[in-house]
């Protein structure tokens, strides 16, 4: 069903479309430049030039590896929520809050009406898409996660904050679609933290995606899927991206109870491990997925963004992922 939608959008993908979740490791020169920029030792223009260089590197690398649906690699983002909250009116930064050990961060505070400030990601999407003929995904953080990872001093409750964010994020989706993005991924890693709030998270996703001509993927990272799985099927998106590489969930049992109705991106690489998984390991993980769903519904990707790995680890993992996919495509008689 979703494959027909993709064809309608002018995108023809092979069996087992391959992609990544969004972030790639920043090359050393960019890490250094970001530190210098934070200390006001270089100008924004200089930083942006290096961000463009790193983006071009990753587009080329993804093409060489053979991925089907590319990402810009988020070379210009630090944190997936802070990037947006720093651009959107209505937010301030809090004082430092501890995350673990000796790690602290500035958590955004919603202090006024959140607004769309004008395009936040279009420039980077256009730049990345201009470097390749393969489709590049539009990448946004979803309203529920932005709400959950912020303090809220303005809206009366979490639901109203989430819905207000959804209305602002929809504007960004609209301009991505206008700019030509056909595949848009919404990241919602916080989605499973409070199962009782899933109904308004779904309501928010309707505000973000309804009526817009794009193929939508939701990336939900790790979490209590068993508690929320059946409700997640109500999310108005075409593709659910689930981390299964080291999942102990009995997906088979869950799918038997409530048949899966969307495309499924199988997160088959463990991004939190330094180990470059062998093609056979990846293949076994994909085959686990093939027992659950017909091959037409399955996409293949890592289980989260690769930004915490080294450039070589990220590349090595993806090369082996593609090797496994190539064998499976050959075996199922498609190329």
């Amino acid at each position, binding site marked *: 069903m979703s494959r027909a939608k993709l064809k309608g959008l002018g995108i023809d993908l092979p069996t087992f479309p391959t992609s990544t979740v969004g972030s790639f490791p920043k090359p050393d020169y960019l890490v250094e430049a970001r530190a210098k920029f934070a200390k006001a030792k270089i100008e924004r223009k200089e930083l942006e030039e290096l961000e463009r260089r790193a983006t071009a590197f990753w587009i080329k690398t993804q093409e060489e590896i053979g991925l089907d649906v590319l990402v810009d690699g988020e070379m210009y983002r630090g944190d997936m929520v802070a990037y947006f909250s720093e651009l959107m009116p209505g937010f301030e930064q809090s004082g430092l*809050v501890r995350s673990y050990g000796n790690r602290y961060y500035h958590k955004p505070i919603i202090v006024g009406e959140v607004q769309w400030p004008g395009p936040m990601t279009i420039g980077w999407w256009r730049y990345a898409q201009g470097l390749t003929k393969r489709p590049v995904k539009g990448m946004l953080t979803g309203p529920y996660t932005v709400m959950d990872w912020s303090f809220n001093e303005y809206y009366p409750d979490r639901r109203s904050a989430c819905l207000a964010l959804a209305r602002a994020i929809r504007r960004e989706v609209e301009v991505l679609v206008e700019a030509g993005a056909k595949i848009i991924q919404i990241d919602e890693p916080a989605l499973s933290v409070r199962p009782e709030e899933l109904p308004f998270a779904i309501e928010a996703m309707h505000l973000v995606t309804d009526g817009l001509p794009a193929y939508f993927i939701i990336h939900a990272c790790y979490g209590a899927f068993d508690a929320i799985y059946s409700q997640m099927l109500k999310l108005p998106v075409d593709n659910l991206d689930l981390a299964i590489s080291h999942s102990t969930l009995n997906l088979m049992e869950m799918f038997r109870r409530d048949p899966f109705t969307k495309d499924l991106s199988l997160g088959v690489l463990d991004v939190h491990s330094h180990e470059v998984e062998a093609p056979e390991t990846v293949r076994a993980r994909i085959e686990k997925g093939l027992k659950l769903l017909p091959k037409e519904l399955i996409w293949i990707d890592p289980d989260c963004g690769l930004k915490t790995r080294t450039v070589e680890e990220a590349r090595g993992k993806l090369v082996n992922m593609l090797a496994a996919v190539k064998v499976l495509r050959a075996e199922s008689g498609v190329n």
Partner: protein
Amino acid sequence: MELLLANHGSYPRIGDSPGQQRLRRAYAQHERGEITSKEFDAIQTSMIQEIVQEQAEAGLDLVTDGQIRWYDPISHFAGRLDGIKINGLLRFFDTNFYIRQPVVADQVLWKGPVLVEEYRSAQAVSPKPVKVVVTGPYTLARFSILESSRYRDLPEIVAAYTDALTKEVEALAAAGATLIQIDEPSILQHPGDAGLVKAALSRIASRKGRARLLLATYFGDAAPLYESLQAFPVDALGFDFTYSRDLADLIARRGSDKAIAFGLIDGRNTRMDRTEEILLILQRALPKVKGSPSYLTSSCGLEYLPRDKAQLKLKRMAAVRAELAGRG
């Protein structure tokens, strides 16, 4: 009806001013081996003194050491027991805070007091009584990975942690602790295990001496468990009011046989709590509470907030009580 102002437990260990960041710098220096453990400890002690003072100045009757020496609420106690190894990071409930997960690798044994020295050193620098906070056996067990074949299931791990905590509570009471808070947030996620927690607390309570025991629940709605909790062997029950629509009405209607720690100040959001809303709840509920003293506190530890906001929240607590007293 006496209502004391109490800090819940954790407190932000750094602030945004350079002086308030000395612990963060010292932590990094200690990790790099640039300062000794003794020097690091002295900086921790000075930060505890500073935050104990901050709580007293805000007008609190009961302070905590802010758990400044703790890596997190799970691994601090569990990691000091024989038989436990400490593993990687795991998200702590629905917060953006991560704990290190204990692995039950062998027989769990209490080697000696973990918190007694912490209690003594905080009390030595505090103008107010120090409340001791420990994470309860059920929550410790829920966050643990079972590797050892000595234990078969969750109840057996709970029993092992209960043995250790019973000895710890006995040592704390002997050291003079007058109020010991046992945190069991996990029970709200698994209400079916209330009997397990009750049995564990019975054992702990048998060694509490003259100390009062306060069972703290948070990060969930306690209303469905409220009736069963009334029969628990503790002196006071602590609730997080930010997750529950019904709790305030329930207490006002049913009353309480035990003192209550009213977690009415939101420990998870920087928005300042409205005095009027809190007063309304206290005025309805307090007359129906039989145990005394009760406590006004935050919904959970204050470490989820930046330091400046945590301090304002403590002051708001004091303002609420002053207003309550003014209205008679």
